[in-house]
């Protein structure tokens, strides 16, 4: 990790706080209009997708309906739900956009998400052992975790996690690895499990029982379309999120180096532990602006549509302290993610030898 001394860290904090203060002072009508427009778009897409779906016996309509519903779920989860729950729109004082009461259209309960994501992941970002989002306790993504033969098959785990992403996120707080290790008892997790079953049941009932039954003669088509829409959302959300912290140059940290850290050090960790990807306007909207993962991690509670505007200022701060600003095209960044998953599935001996060879070739 890039090392800065105490004074530099304090100055870094001041520089970033200044960017934040400027946005906060400017929050108003424009931000409210933006999120309301996105919510209207979501409602239109969801209603449209659901209405089209029963006519899915016409193949192009099936494709259109599934894609529409899938995109509706993506927008709701990423640009609305995730961002609202971060408190990005709490200042609007609209009960429908309140961070603590918003419930989103996915298996994970909002309460569980606020604990595991908003608190754990955003506070302990990329600290191995404290940030359980780093590899989701099923993938080995750095050499801080000891290799064992099971890791050889982790690419299969990755595919499964991606396909079933909403269920994976939903059970994340179960901390099954700690139960396996005997650090937690099942009994401790009963309240969580109850909530998980209720919300998971609700989501399953809606997409896989209620709407298919409502349109009984074409139930299989509606069921298939709804499965497809959930699958589209799962794959996209997983891919975007993996690009946020598991790219080649995104750094990891140890508990020792973060003990009693200052706000400036926390900022530095967010800057170096996250990675962006570039693209057009709609790529950013559909990723909930997590394509600006660095800006998001530095300012998780600023309205996300502001990230593109402040990106240049954040880059200027990075340049000032010679902190790397990790960005690249979507394809390039995702490529390095896949490489990381593959690389760390191998025993350290094999991995270092392969890496060594490549370095030699480079020379």
């Amino acid at each position, binding site marked *: 990790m890039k090392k800065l001394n105490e004074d530099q860290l304090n100055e870094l904090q001041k520089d970033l706080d200044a960017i934040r203060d400027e946005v906060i002072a400017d929050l108003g009508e424009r931000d409210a209009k933006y999120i309301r427009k996105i919510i209207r778009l979501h409602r239109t897409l969801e209603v449209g997708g659901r209405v089209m779906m029963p006519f899915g016996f016409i193949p192009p309509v099936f494709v259109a309906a599934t894609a529409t519903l899938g995109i509706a779920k993506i927008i709701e989860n990423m640009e609305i739900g995730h961002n609202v729950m971060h408190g990005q729109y709490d200042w609007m*004082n609209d009960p*429908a956009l309140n961070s603590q009461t918003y419930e989103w259209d996915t298996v994970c309960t909002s309460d569980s998400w606020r604990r595991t994501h908003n608190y754990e992941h*955003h506070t302990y970002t990329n600290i191995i052992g404290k940030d359980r989002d780093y590899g989701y306790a099923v993938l080995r993504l750095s050499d801080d975790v000891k290799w064992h033969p099971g890791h050889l098959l982790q690419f299969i785990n990755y595919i499964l996690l991606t396909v079933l992403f909403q269920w994976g996120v939903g059970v994340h707080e179960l901390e099954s690895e700690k139960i396996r290790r005997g650090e937690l008892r099942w009994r401790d997790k009963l309240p969580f499990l109850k909530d998980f079953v209720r919300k998971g049941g609700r989501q399953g009932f809606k997409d896989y029982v*209620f709407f298919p039954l409502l349109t009984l003669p074409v139930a299989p088509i509606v069921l298939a379309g709804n499965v497809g829409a959930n699958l589209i959302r799962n794959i996209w959300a997983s891919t975007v999120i993996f690009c946020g912290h598991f790219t080649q140059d995104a750094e990891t940290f140890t508990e020792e180096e973060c003990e009693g850290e200052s706000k400036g050090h926390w900022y530095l960790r967010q800057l170096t532990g996250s990675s962006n990807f570039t693209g057009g306007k709609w790529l950013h909207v559909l990723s909930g602006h997590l394509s600006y993962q660095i800006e998001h991690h530095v300012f998780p509670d600023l309205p996300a549509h502001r990230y593109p505007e402040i990106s240049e200022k954040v880059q200027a701060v990075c340049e000032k302290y010679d902190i790397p600003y990790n960005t690249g095209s979507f394809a390039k960044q995702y490529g390095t993610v896949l490489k990381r998953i593959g690389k760390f599935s191998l025993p350290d001996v094999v991995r270092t030898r392969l890496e060594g060879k490549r370095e030699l070739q480079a020379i």
Partner: protein
Amino acid sequence: MLARLSNTKALHWLGRQLLNRDNPAGYFDPLAEAINPMWVQEYTPARVENIINETADTKTFVLKPAKRWAGFQAGQHVNICTDIEGVRRTRTFSLSSSPLLWQSEGQITLTIKRLPGGLVTNWMHDALQPGDVIGLTEAFGEFLIPEPAHPVLFIAGGSGITPILSQLQTMAAEDYRAPVTLLYYVRTHNDVIAREALQALAARWPALSLTIIATNESDEPRYLRDSDLETVAGIKAREVFLCGPKGLMDLATDLLAKRGLKEKQMHSTFFAPPAQASLDSDQLGGEVTFSNSNLKVGSEGDANLLEIAEAAGLKPQYGCRMGICHQCSCRKTSGIVVNRLTGKVSGPGEEPVQLCVSVPQGPVALDV
């Protein structure tokens, strides 16, 4: 009724299953609002039908709420909500019209004085236009006409006349059978709100005696004095309704108590102007009410609400304790807090606050 109840219950259940929310109708509000704002379900929408100038700084807003609004009793208040610069603002105002107008025309009126520096009242005076839609809650308040009829004394100051206007019109229409006196204190005679309506009432309803007193027209201010009360016949037996600035209410309560009136005879409703914002640390701290826990504790200096809650033995949800994660956000129902990170001073009304970075400035009430 039972069918309707089970119907709503079933709808709520389905709403939770399909839309992850208790009020399924609200899900479509963003679309409804774009087509016709009167279709919004989350609050009761009310269209502004007319705006009448009462005095230089007071206007009456004639509103037509959506039909599902449940109505009100004379003397009650209502919360209005509206988005100003993207922020939902909620304020309480007294209804100044009689419930009879709502029953016959489906209209209600709010009579609102422009508060110097007031965000919402100034916006209503300057930006709100006929045809616009604002939100309403159901009416509430215990400032009600005595039943059965009983001699009444109203003491009003300035815009404190508004709930009393509603009561007087209702009492006149019912031909209220007991003496009613209104002592109405205004700054100057140009500041009398609804002068014509009051004079018309006094002319056609013999039970009402009306006295308007200007406080600031001579060199010496002429506030409420005991001799004003002297003129009220049988004052000891009257139910007294007070509404106006704090100074007037305190003075009246004092003089009435000296005349032997009991506390339960006196009904008052406050019109306190919002306190001045300040960042001096010796002005920080204050009594914190945790409404859901039935707990009140004092605090001093720059202790934040989370620390205060924990010191009081409460365990509110929290996360980072540094203002990042919003885990500890909860609803403030009243009072002013200072944000420790930004130094920003909050408004006095209802809004979400982050406990871990909010320091009370004066009394604060929280839904914790």
